[in-house]
């Protein structure tokens, strides 16, 4: 056992850093550190650069066009990119549907879909949740009925998906649909890939509490989907869904960005005036930062332990749920303390500075405008990807046997 990096890993980290410095647009990087929201171009340009380098699908095996990195390399890659201020990779293609396709898809499907995911040429979104099916995902009701016409075998899909992140940027959506209303609820579900340009697909924005627009309702009205867009057998969509959720939960511990968050919190504390000195001179406040710092360390080490199990060929088990729980709580605590560090100047609401390219100046210090909106917005992290209550149900059942 050894925590220290081997020389070849140091060289690898340097390579990643050099790549980020050469390829990440300064404007995008500035948004990361100022807390401004990215637009689609920020994400796509960066992801395309990663794609050209063969690094976008960095968790994939070589066989499917991934770099075939070991656990340490992935860890370094994520950390260095976070330090350099890269936007997080939108997970729906490379981290979610990609692995589903190469694990459960046919050779034709792999050839058809994987290249666009690896290059970020095609943007994906996730159509799981419905108004009536959130935590109880398996109760989903979007219906897909088999039909045949001159153009071949297809499904006619009807229903509504909701909370669909980045559907407004999506070219394709992967959906869980009910293909057999008679079967046991999990067994009647299939996994379909739907081109968002198909007639009958409508996207409607949902405004979040901080004014942000990331999520959407997606209405599916007699949408015709060729049968060859189904991944896995009919009725086996739930297997794909669960496989994907386990991957999703690992990704959303967000350790590298939390480390960045703690660093920036320290910077803010050093910059915030208090009684002629700074907030960093207030032991009551710095103790709270230190506590958070330690929480991040515990999380990171737990994640490394999980990754190391995976490196030895183990699949991510239900214990990754604990990473998601703690990861979300830590992210929320960072945003909370950051807002408290800003104090009274967290009150001015300047949406122009968060969402648009305006030359408006901040009312208070530069770090103030995103502080409260981020705190509000990040309440989502204990809700999405399976709420923390649901994660705890999973741990108590699957890990503790309750």
């Amino acid at each position, binding site marked *: 056992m050894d925590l220290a990096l081997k020389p070849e890993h140091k060289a690898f980290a340097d390579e990643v850093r050099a790549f980020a410095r050469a390829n990440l647009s300064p404007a995008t990087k500035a948004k990361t550190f100022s807390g401004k929201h990215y637009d689609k171009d920020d994400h796509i340009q960066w992801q395309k650069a990663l794609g050209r380098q063969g690094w976008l699908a960095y968790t994939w095996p070589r066989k499917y066009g991934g770099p075939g990195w070991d656990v340490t390399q992935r860890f370094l890659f994520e950390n260095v990119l976070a330090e350099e201020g890269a936007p997080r990779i939108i997970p729906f293609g490379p981290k979610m549907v990609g692995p589903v396709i190469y694990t459960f898809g046919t050779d034709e499907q792999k050839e058809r879909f994987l290249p666009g995911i690896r290059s970020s040429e095609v943007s994906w979104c996730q159509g799981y*949740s419905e108004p*009536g099916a*959130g*935590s*109880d995902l398996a*109760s989903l009701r979007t219906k897909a009925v088999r039909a045949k016409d001159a153009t071949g075998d297809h499904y006619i899909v009807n229903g509504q998906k*909701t*909370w669909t992140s980045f559907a407004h940027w999506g070219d394709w959506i992967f959906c869980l649909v009910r293909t057999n209303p008679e079967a046991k609820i999990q067994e009647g579900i299939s996994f379909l890939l739907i081109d968002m340009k198909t007639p009958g697909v409508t996207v409607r924005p*949902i*405004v*979040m*509490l901080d*004014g942000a627009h990331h*999520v959407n309702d997606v209405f599916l009205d007699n949408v015709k989907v060729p049968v060859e867009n189904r991944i896995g057998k009919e009725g086996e969509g739930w297997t794909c869904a669960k496989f994907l959720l386990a991957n999703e939960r690992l990704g959303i511990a967000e350790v590298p960005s939390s480390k960045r968050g703690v660093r920036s919190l320290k910077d803010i504390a050093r910059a*915030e*005036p*208090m*009684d*002629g000195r700074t*907030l960093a001179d207030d032991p*009551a*406040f710095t103790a*709270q930062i230190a506590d958070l710092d330690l929480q991040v360390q515990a999380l990171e080490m737990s994640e490394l332990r999980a990754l190391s199990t995976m490196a030895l060929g183990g699949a991510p088990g239900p214990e990754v749920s604990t990473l998601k729980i703690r990861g979300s709580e830590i992210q929320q605590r960072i945003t909370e303390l950051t*807002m*408290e560090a800003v*104090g*009274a*100047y*967290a*009150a*001015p*609401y*300047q949406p122009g500075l968060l969402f648009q390219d305006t030359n408006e100046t901040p*009312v*208070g*210090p530069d770090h103030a405008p995103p502080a*409260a*909106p981020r*705190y*509000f*917005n990040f*309440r*989502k992290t*204990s*809700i*999405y990807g399976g*709420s*923390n*209550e649901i994660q*705890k149900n999973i741990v108590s059942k699957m890990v503790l046997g309750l």
Partner: protein
Amino acid sequence: MDLSLSDEQKQLQDAAERFVRDKYTFENRRKIAATEKGWLTENWAQMAELGWLGMAFSEEDGGYGGGPIETMIVMEQFGKGLVLEPFLPTVVLGGGMIAKAGSKAQKESLLAPMIEGKKQFAFAWLERQSRYNLADVSLKATKEGNGWSLSGHKGVVYNAPSADHIIVLARTSGSAREEKGLTLFVVDAKAKGITRRDYPTQDALRASELTFDKVSVGADAVLGKVDDAFGVVEDAVDHAIVALCAEATGCMDAINAATLEYIKTRKQFGVPIGKFQVLQHRMVDCFTNAQEARSMTLMASLKIDDKDSVVRRKAASGAKVQIGKSGKFCGQSAVQMHGGMGVTDELSVSHYFKRLTMIDLMFGNQQHHLTRYSNLAMAA
């Protein structure tokens, strides 16, 4: 001991409840928040007519002889409706300081019209470096003939866009952060030399950054004694804190009620989610938190006019700590129990959550008041 409301106080509570029910449905509030000034003249006129703008002032000051309990009753209902009219800056802070420190002439020219609904105030104390320290004031007032000249900056001044007068805390002598050497000035909001930058706040109120560039005022603009404003300010802010605590208890009641209703009706896994014990217990904790908040607010409202300043200060800080803690718990829990719906703009929960969050940051957050309380308690 008697902790029940008098008949008159019950009538006041009913009237405030009615006002909120009629004027502050969630959809109405959304419309009011979207207007240019962010509150309604007709609502303000109605508050004047109902006597709310004068209820906490003595009869000799033109008021109706009530006090902090009356303020508590009304603010609690305002919290339930997320009322946007500038009661706190105008009546509690501005009116409170004028009643406490104002000359007879000032009471006649400022307080009387305020009670009639004809004048509004904003209180400019905070500066970029002040954080929560009321004495950390560097805006300077220097003698100029018979009067004064004010220069410097004030920040996050609530209701400045609508105020007729800005009550400015300025340094007239002493060094940075010294309590001695502070003076209050009542300045015409349109005075030459004041530049305003207006903005909405996270919780749909309005505030401004104010720059004072050699703003000339007469000697009669001084509120209270020169160099001796700190006590008046601290006391007014402590009263405002207690009023905010009452508002927060109203917010908590409303957000808890909305959440309880939601978990009874939202179904997952074939049952209302309120059937899950983890949510039941969290809901119970929300109610417990709101109860504690209400208790501490009542305690503070009863003590805030105490003769002993240590008692007053401890009461305000103690209640503010509780409100910070309970408000955060209720706000975060409500959002969590609403699932995705909780983080949308569409439902009222997120709006209560934002208001509760901002209340914590006003006049010192939970941590600040815990420190202040502990300094006072350990000294005694």
